């Protein structure tokens, strides 16, 4: 197990280094520098700025500086927000994105698992068909489209909820739902499939033959085993919720990291773009690692070494 974790962390570092290098080189290929504004600066000023930010050094030295900075929690400087580091911008947006992501994640579990379970336990019933139809539809319609429909119904027509913003519970309801439907549909599908699989297992039949109460079998035997694949999906899902939320953040005017990233793209703020990409890389790789380890903890049959 320890060897497995060390191996994984080693690969994680390699992956992040490669991602940083690709991003860094791409940013260097972009025509135009960070000081290209409507007002052209005097060459002396540009030289001074380049010197201040270390942009006069050769490419590899700049990359080295950048990696050194990352190791110290410094994701570089933003070129469009004066006096602010990328780290502070991300730290400002992160709580909003994370809150939204976690709420959506909980919502997806609360919707997905019961529906998937009910569908499998009552296979080929009306509950099953409805659950399959809904999960198929919601798995293919993007949250963005759903968000728009929600806004039209609940904000424009009924005037029940605000169209966007951040701070009150009313403002979270629609974006959380829009974000949760896709993972909820996936979780329902996986839960249904894995429950059907578990129901056919010998240990369930044995438990039934022994006369154990149906409830006990459901909780102790079926639920625990059926949820293993759901947990494996949880890492990528949570990563999806955190990284995929920037369209939803834009739609609902939520000042999270996704929206800041998009603003950075508009302002051609390469410092901010690069810092965000690497931040996302860390979050996603880290979450996937945690889930793979959790996977082994939950299911003792899985051994990595």
């Amino acid at each position, binding site marked *: 197990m320890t060897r497995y974790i060390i191996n994984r962390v080693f690969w994680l570092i390699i*992956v992040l280094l*490669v*991602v940083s290098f*690709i*991003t860094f080189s*791409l*940013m260097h*290929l*972009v025509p135009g520098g960070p000081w290209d504004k409507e007002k052209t600066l005097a060459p002396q000023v540009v030289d001074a700025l380049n010197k201040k930010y270390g942009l006069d050094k050769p490419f590899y030295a700049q990359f080295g500086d950048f990696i050194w900075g990352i190791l110290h929690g410094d994701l570089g400087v933003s070129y469009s927000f004066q006096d602010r580091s990328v780290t502070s911008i991300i730290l400002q947006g992160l709580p909003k994105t994370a809150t939204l992501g976690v709420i959506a994640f909980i919502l997806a579990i609360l919707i997905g698992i019961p529906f998937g379970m009910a569908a499998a336990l009552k296979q080929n019933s009306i509950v099953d068909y409805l659950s399959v139809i809904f999960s*198929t*539809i919601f*798995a*293919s*319609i*993007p949250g*963005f*489209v759903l968000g*728009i*429909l929600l*806004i*039209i119904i609940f904000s*424009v*027509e009924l005037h029940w909820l605000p*169209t966007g913003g951040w701070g009150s519970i009313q403002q979270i309801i629609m974006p959380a739902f829009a974000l949760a439907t896709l993972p909820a549909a996936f979780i329902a599908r996986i839960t249904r499939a894995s429950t059907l699989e578990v129901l056919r297992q010998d240990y369930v039949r044995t438990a039934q033959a022994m006369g154990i109460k149906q409830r006990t079998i459901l909780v102790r035997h079926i639920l625990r085993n059926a949820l293993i694949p759901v947990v494996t999906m949880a890492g990528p899902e949570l*990563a*999806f919720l955190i*990284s*995929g939320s*920037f*369209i939803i953040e*834009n*739609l609902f005017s939520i000042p999270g990291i996704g929206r800041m*990233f*998009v603003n950075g*793209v*508009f302002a*051609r703020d390469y410092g901010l*773009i690069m810092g965000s*990409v690497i931040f*996302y*890389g860390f979050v*996603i*790789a880290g979450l*996937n690692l945690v889930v793979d380890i959790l996977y082994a903890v939950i299911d003792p049959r899985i051994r990595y070494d």
Partner: protein
Amino acid sequence: MTIAAESVRPHHTLWGDAWIRLRRNKLAVTGGVLILLIALIAIIYPFFSKYDFASQDLNAILQSPSSEHLLGTDELGRDVLTRLIYGARTSLMVGIFTQLIVLAIGLPLGAFSGATGGRTDNFIMRFVDVIYAFPDLLLIILLRSILGGSIYMIFLAIGLVNWVGVARLVRGQILSLKQRDFVTAARVLGGSGGYITTRHLLPNSLGPVIVTVTFNIPRAIFTEAALSYIGIGVQPPTPSWGAMIRDGYNVIFAAPHLVLFPAIAIGIIMLSFTFLGDGLRDALDPRLRR
């Protein structure tokens, strides 16, 4: 002998079988018919329409649907139905061209990696894993901000990120096919590596590739819509559903239909491709073959 065998059981090919199974799947047929219908309308509509997507009529702005303008007009007095249909052209083009790029890179690289094996394979797959682990949209936005905003560069940005899925799939297919008896037989008979890859390995891994591409198309369409919605997709006046939502959103309380119709259009096209993809997957799965 052959005559006797044929009279017992008519000759079925994998593709013939798949076609029969696909036709029995109602959802897949509905999806396929809708896609063909949308494509057909997108191609022939401009020859019959009295409006074009860019001409403005400032005397008729923000109108609700009427017999004159079936889906109403936008904030510049442009016919929404016309823009929606031209938007379908953009979407379908994105779907097709991105997947051509995906196939052009993913198929040969995946096949090469799987057929060669060893250190080359390991190296290519590590690179693929790195890209695969990353959220698509993030990399696409990154590439888009480097490549610029022309529609071809958007095809390229999406294609350059999405090929990894196909490369992985083809490699996996080829690795498992390599162990099969008919490949061993071909090798024993003296077939060269290139011959075996192109004549035996690739054709046999085509089914899953078709399914994956069918699922990739709606994703690419949505990616373009999302890029255009945040304002870094296709540039005006080229109509795009994402851009229509962006423009219409400013006047959503006055004219919700401007946002509603393109949103529904995205939903329908994505559902259609998913239904077709589900149907194809079931139809091409040889384990279901009777």
